[in-house]
């Protein structure tokens, strides 16, 4: 143990090899997810426009950028960028998680939280829950490996089939995932603005928190709304 304040500078001194740089990776990759979920949520609202609107939208995603880009080209670019972001986000999350565990190996017998929101406390396990959900979601709707209630050619029909009352548990999974997503966005967006150094005063911090809460509410409610309407037979 070092009991004197002798300077022991680490061998390598680089800005990009710090925990703050790791947080920047997390903030940038997380922000890309946020942009993605906003766009995805908006697309899903086309369920309210009927079968043609929704299926056209799904088809349009594949012809986006044509003829400059090939069929599905832009979609694949988005997928690759998102996959890269997911990997970077998970890597930095687990790196910081394990560092935090090593930073306090003897726990307090008594510890009170004075400022932590529930969302902040749920970031790590909530993130793991979102990852599991993401895998389930892709297997169900993208690769169609898991086929819950019949498989159709029309994306609209697949959506409607998935949220029928007979398979109510699918709705429950999605509803819980949206709670986890709302919580992750609520702390994540605030945390990202802080990590990026944009919240240097009280007003900016308040605005960042308002933005985080608003985005969390809009995205999670926007996502679950069409599913609720299918469940209750309004969209069929």
């Amino acid at each position, binding site marked *: *143990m*070092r*009991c*004197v*304040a*002798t*300077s*022991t*500078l*680490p061998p*390598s*001194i*680089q*800005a*990009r*090899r*710090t*925990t*703050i*740089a*790791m*947080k*920047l990776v997390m903030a940038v990759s997380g922000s890309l997810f946020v942009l993605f979920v906003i766009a995805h949520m908006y697309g899903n609202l086309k369920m309210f426009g009927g079968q043609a609107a929704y299926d056209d939208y799904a088809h349009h995603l594949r012809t986006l950028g044509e003829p400059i880009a090939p069929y599905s080209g832009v979609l694949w670019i988005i997928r690759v960028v998102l996959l890269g972001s997911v990997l970077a986000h998970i890597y930095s999350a687990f790196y*910081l998680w394990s*560092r*935090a565990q*090593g*930073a*306090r*190996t*003897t*726990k*307090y*017998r*008594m*510890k*009170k*939280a*004075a*400022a*932590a*929101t529930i969302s*902040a*406390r749920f*970031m790590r396990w909530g993130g793991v829950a979102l990852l599991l959900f993401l895998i389930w979601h892709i297997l169900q709707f993208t690769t169609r490996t898991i086929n819950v209630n019949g498989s159709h050619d029309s994306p609209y029909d697949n959506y409607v089939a998935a949220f029928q009352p007979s398979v109510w548990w699918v709705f429950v999974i999605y509803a819980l995932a949206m709670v986890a997503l709302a919580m992750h966005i609520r*702390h994540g967006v*605030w*945390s990202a603005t*802080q*990590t*990026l*150094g*944009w*919240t*240097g*005063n*009280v007003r*900016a*911090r308040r605005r960042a928190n308002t933005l985080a809460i608003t985005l969390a509410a809009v995205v999670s409610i926007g996502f679950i709304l069409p599913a609720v309407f299918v469940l209750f037979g309004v969209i069929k």
Partner: protein
Amino acid sequence: MKITLKVWRQSGPKDSGGLATYELDDITEDMSFLEVLDVLNEGLITSGEEPVAFDSDCREGICGMCGLMINGSAHGPEVTTTCQLHMRSFSDGETITVEPWRADAFPVLKDLVVDRSAFDRIIQAGGFISVNTGAAPDAHAVPVPKENADKAFASAACIGCGACVAACPNASGMLFMGAKVTHLGLLPQGQPERDARVVKMVNQHDHEGFGGCTNIGECAAACPKEIPMDVISQLNKDLRTAMQHGR
């Protein structure tokens, strides 16, 4: 007042330690928390037992030596230092748990005393300005915008007590470091070393084994000098800027 103290006792850095229970019944409301520990120690010495080791120096809230985890809160239930905490903040008959700061970068030396020299090493890594000493320059020789002066001054209020680390679920020292980086970075004298300072300090911080920040805010809530999270934003911004400058 009658109180029950549950105090962390640990004979040395290698001892595993544990909580010991003591009853005290001659406590008055206007005693400071450290005076209560003094009373406890007088009793222990009289009965031939080892007194509880704890840190203190100024006992007026400015040196930062006296940090204790009291009933799960850094410096106890009030926004102040342990030496400025008084027994009127507790109720008669209360059981009070007292633990040392917990962070692997702050190893326990004995009982409630931890070694905070990791903070000194962070300061040595870059928390200073290099100037020729001599006669103090005239205060108005270098103009400083009022807003910057105020903010630098508020950040300089950090006494390095370590409550931010103690309260942080990640045992991160970012509020401490943010206060130093903001204090020096907002003043003209701090500019020449601004990029180098933040990079060195953050590297040293990580090297000491503190955790990374996740912007939860427990630090600012525990800070006896009420230093806000703004300074962490400034720290992050300065590190990003240094990175953009190729550091």
